[in-house]
């Protein structure tokens, strides 16, 4: 396992699902206006951090949900 990964499997799956839900809400037109635009962008954050297993905020706080 690469050393920079700081998320456990469950954490990653939750992030990917959350990211996809936000993106579907934004890009799918379920939420419109400013919130819709925000969701279109913000959804990528949990999606990408989940897919790559690295959370910069965890790293800043020296926290991790997986085993070192």
């Amino acid at each position, binding site marked *: 396992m690469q*050393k920079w990964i700081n998320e456990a499997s469950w954490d990653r*799956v939750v992030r990917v699902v959350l990211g996809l839900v936000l993106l579907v809400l934004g890009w799918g037109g379920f939420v419109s206006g400013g919130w819709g635009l925000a969701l279109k962008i913000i959804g990528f954050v949990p999606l990408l951090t989940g897919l790559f297993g690295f959370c910069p905020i965890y790293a800043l706080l020296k926290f991790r949900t997986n085993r070192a």
Partner: protein
Amino acid sequence: MQPDEFTQHIQSTQTPTLVEFWAPWCAPCRAMTPDLERAAEEHRDGVTLLRINADSSHELLRQLGVMGIPTLIGYQQGQEVFRRTGAQNIDGIREMFTALSANRPLRRGPSPADRVLRLGAGLALVILGLSQGGLLLPMAAGLLLAFTGIYDRCPIYQTLAPRLKSLLRKWFLP
């Protein structure tokens, strides 16, 4: 070790060699040593482990472009076949020895779970883009994500990546 001594050693040996650059003050090197020695023992007939103290081999490090330690370089018939910098776990080390002894390329791509996650999320984004009348951004992002799940299996990537890496090394290293 001097560069010409190293080159002579690497060129003259028929056995694949795994070279480790380490230093006594390097904590990751020390942490990796038991695993490295264990894997070397497991493959003692097929692969030679050559450990070089970086502190006394500055010129060699400069010539090989080694920018950090620990660095592990695999040599097959005198040619460098892979290079990894940073501490490796026992599985990664064993994979290096196995690749060298079997004379096959070292692959280190995403884990199967990562592949499924990336391909699934990428596909979901592509479907989302298509369902909304062909939205470019979700579709492009989806394709890119899906590609990160299989990039190491892509023949075009495999062909271009080493050339790109060698070009970058040439441009950015003295």
